């Protein structure tokens, strides 16, 4: 981002700030961190201003704002990591954090590694915004909430409750590493969410809609991204699901709609390809490089460079530029997602996947925007090809067991397919499968690839990071559907 920011949104550690950190100060901190004998250290300064707004019962109920500032210091020695942080950027506090992290190398007994002079890392701009949303007045955001609320209520008289929320932040990071890299990035984010409850003759259902990404307020100017569209979507799902019937139980073909279904991919294969699990040989994809792990139709890509997408990163949290990485090509496993530690272990270049939730946590290999690329089939033909199965449209989330590859994902809007046609809406149901097994059963792939609107957050080891997913329409020949009807 190149815009000049108002003072309240500028990090105190940046040039011109109240506690500006220059390369020389950073070098002194890194030296203190490495003194006991560590072989690498980095400093991660973070300043984050966030705001949230919520509307309930047609009234503005919540207005919130928060400021987070801190420094995380990491020291590694071999595969071991020492980590400490401070929220106080007073010099002695920063030195204390550096020394605490450095103790991981105590008793190592070799001369301290010298700190290389910092050189600024160059990277392209993947989230250009005319102006961060935090600069726009709060009343503009309240107007969005009112528009979404109004649209949801207008959709159907059976909509009885609407909640609309808007959350935004602007995060500025400054990173220095002992091997001489320096990176500075400003990361915008916004997210709108709408939830509607429908009631009809004692039956009640909820639906949700929303979206966002690394945008400014210009996000809402795009087609289908305006506030009213999100309100209508929440209302549509709530009304459609009023007639939901019991979902079937057992193995059957499942067709996944485009976009949000990427959640399945994120769980079924994404996590298993994060290289920390493979470095430790704890993933079921360990040792599978160069081998077929999916149907030949499948090409899976993790791409941090998709402009304005929720998972986009100019530079990762270890100072490596965001990249497009092919993970599976025509069904063959060709690469993992790396952080610095795993890249070193595998002897490859870091892939720009080293991410952290905040200065309070160490980086881990994480996904950015993960996609299954489009195929050749007409999406309608895919649905027509199924005699009896399920069409999955919206999801409430998923989870995977990295070791054995079992994953679940929860459908919040799905339909029965009977003789090639979508028929009854189904009650909330879970799908369960095994990652490699399910990817081998992908036997039709639509030409309608879509990226999800930005709503997803991924959790790993207690750290949450924003991600995005994308897929075309996909047919899986058989997967276990966890309904109640035999």
């Amino acid at each position, binding site marked *: 981002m190149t815009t000049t920011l108002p003072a309240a949104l500028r990090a105190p550690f940046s040039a011109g700030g109240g506690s500006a950190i220059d390369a020389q100060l950073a070098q002194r901190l890194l030296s203190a961190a490495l003194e006991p004998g560590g072989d690498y250290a980095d400093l991660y300064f973070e300043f984050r201003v966030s705001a949230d707004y919520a509307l309930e019962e047609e009234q503005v109920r919540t207005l919130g704002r928060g400021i987070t500032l801190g420094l995380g210091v990491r020291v590694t020695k071999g*595969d071991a990591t020492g980590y400490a942080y*401070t929220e106080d950027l007073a010099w002695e506090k920063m030195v204390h954090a550096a020394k605490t992290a450095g103790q991981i190398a105590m008793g190592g007994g070799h001369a301290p590694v010298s700190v290389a002079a910092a050189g600024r890392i160059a990277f392209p701009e993947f989230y250009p915004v005319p102006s961060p949303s935090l600069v726009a007045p709060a009343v503009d955001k309240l107007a969005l909430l009112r528009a979404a609320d109004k649209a949801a209520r207008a959709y159907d008289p059976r909509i009885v409750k609407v909640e609309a929320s808007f959350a935004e932040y602007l995060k500025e990071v400054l990173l220095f590493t002992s091997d001489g890299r320096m990176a500075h990035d400003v990361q915008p984010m916004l997210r709108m969410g709408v939830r509607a*409850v429908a009631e009809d003759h004692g039956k009640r259902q909820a639906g949700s809609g929303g979206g966002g990404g690394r945008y400014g307020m210009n996000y809402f100017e795009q087609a289908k991204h305006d506030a009213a569209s999100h309100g209508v979507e929440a209302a549509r799902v709530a009304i459609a699901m009023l007639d939901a019937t019991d979902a079937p139980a*057992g193995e059957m073909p499942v067709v996944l709609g485009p976009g949000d279904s990427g959640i399945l991919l994120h769980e079924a294969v994404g996590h298993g390809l994060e290289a920390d699990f493979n470095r430790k040989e704890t993933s079921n994809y360990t040792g599978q490089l160069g081998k077929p792990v999916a149907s030949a139709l499948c090409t899976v890509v993790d791409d941090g460079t998709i402009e304005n997408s929720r998972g986009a990163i100019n530079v990762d949290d270890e100072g490596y530029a965001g990249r497009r990485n092919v993970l599976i090509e025509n069904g063959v496993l060709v690469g993992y997602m790396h952080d610095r530690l795993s890249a070193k272990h595998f002897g490859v270049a870091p892939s720009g996947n080293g991410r952290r939730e905040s200065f309070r946590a160490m980086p881990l290999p994480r996904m950015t925007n993960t996609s299954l690329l489009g195929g050749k089939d007409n999406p309608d033909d895919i649905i027509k090809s199924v005699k009896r199965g399920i069409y999955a449209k919206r999801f409430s989330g998923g989870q995977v067991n990295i070791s054995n590859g079992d994953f679940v994902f929860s459908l919040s809007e799905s339909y029965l397919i009977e003789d090639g046609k979508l028929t009854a809406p189904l009650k909330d149901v879970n799908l369960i499968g095994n990652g490699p097994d399910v990817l081998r059963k992908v036997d039709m792939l639509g030409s309608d690839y879509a990226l999800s609107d930005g709503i997803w957050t991924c959790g790993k080891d207690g750290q949450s990071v924003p991600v995005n997913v994308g897929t075309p329409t996909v047919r899986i020949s058989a997967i276990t559907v966890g309904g109640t009807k035999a």
Partner: protein
Amino acid sequence: MTSGAQITDDTVRELTELAQLAVELAKKAGADAAEVLVRDGSELTAKVRLGEPELVQEAGSRALGLRVLKGARRATTYTSDLRRPALEALCAETCALAELAEPDEYALPPDPQLLAKPPLPELDLYDPAVGEVDAAWALREAKTGEAAARRFDARVTNSEGATWSRVLGATAFATSGGFSGGYRGSYASLVVEPLCDDTTDPANPKKRNGYWWTASRFLSQLDVAEAVGIEAARRTVATLGSRKVATQECPIVFDPEVARSIVGTIFSVANGSSFWRKSSYLVGKEGQPIASKLVTIVDDPLIPRAPGSRPFDGDGLPTRKNPVVEAGVLAPVLCDVYSARKLGRASTASAGRGIGGNPGPTTSNLIMAAGSTSRDQLLRDTPRGLYVTQLMGFGFNPVTGDFSRGAQGFWIENGELTFPVSEVTIAANFDEILKRIDAVADDLVMRTATAAPTFRVSHMMLAGTARGA
């Protein structure tokens, strides 16, 4: 390595004074009412993998959350910058933000008569011995636990590591209505996560992970590291050869590790917030049977040394023990002041409050009462069915009660656990699940803030392979 992260009574007093100061600053900035929460925490995490240190993380942090009311308009803010000029700026900004909200009479502060008055109950939540632990000691404990797991069985071929961690924290709260108070707490835990190679199906080799853990506010109450490691290994090895079973309706027995998540799910639909929002299938069911007669659940914040105990709630009210379900009948749902007013009743003093938000109903120690049969007897009385040890995913719709989640566990045949099962789902409407609980064991252990004994649901739909496969 350093230690000395103790939180003293002086720290609590200092934080309480800071909270009171911020209340005064907010009033000076034009707030009609103000509520301030201050938290101070310090953490130590020591992780070992394959006998070597993998991570040592040590740090402390402080934050302040402010909620102001201008008339009935409210706003919330938080900061980690606790210097006086920063607090003054925050107060001014929060008051300006509140002007943008619409008035909400329900959000006004509680009647000062209702606020907790000193002395606050002494709940014995802090153990200085936890604070004395240093990184070297924590690493040794983790190493001992992991080594015990790897030694226990040759089939434990790898490890996701063992982690010893502790959190020390202080909470202080002050309001313009006259409440001020604080308390400190400690919590320590050890988790061991062994890994096995499963070559039961040579064409499709898999890895199997498992875990076991111990946790307490008091160092002396932790299980010894060797025992944790051995139990982790035993549980992991037991999953070797896991397979699907055929789709069928059958009894489901919930191990305490998953039974407590079912009890947590009950609270998610039995609280004042979900009630006034009508996002619970239980709306209108207070005083009616919503579960089998065998089900009794209480929320008790006043148990000394327990993980979820608290002397006052997020509104500053004195906490008390509340019934949640009594012999299957839904008690008045847990409320904070706001949701209670929305429902036209009194708070149950169940408010929780985070640094950056409005209060809402939360649980303290949410406990399902033990039954009278032993776990072994309960199993012996189950001719066939699934014994569930792990649940996966988020398949629960609070508005309709539809429940469908991934499950892992053991197949029960003639009253005994036979072979391990994975990659199946269990589903039913939550209303049916609770009403079909037909046996509750006597094995309740208070290790976690939400706790339950083993129990059995007479039947649920299990989805696995095609029927007869």
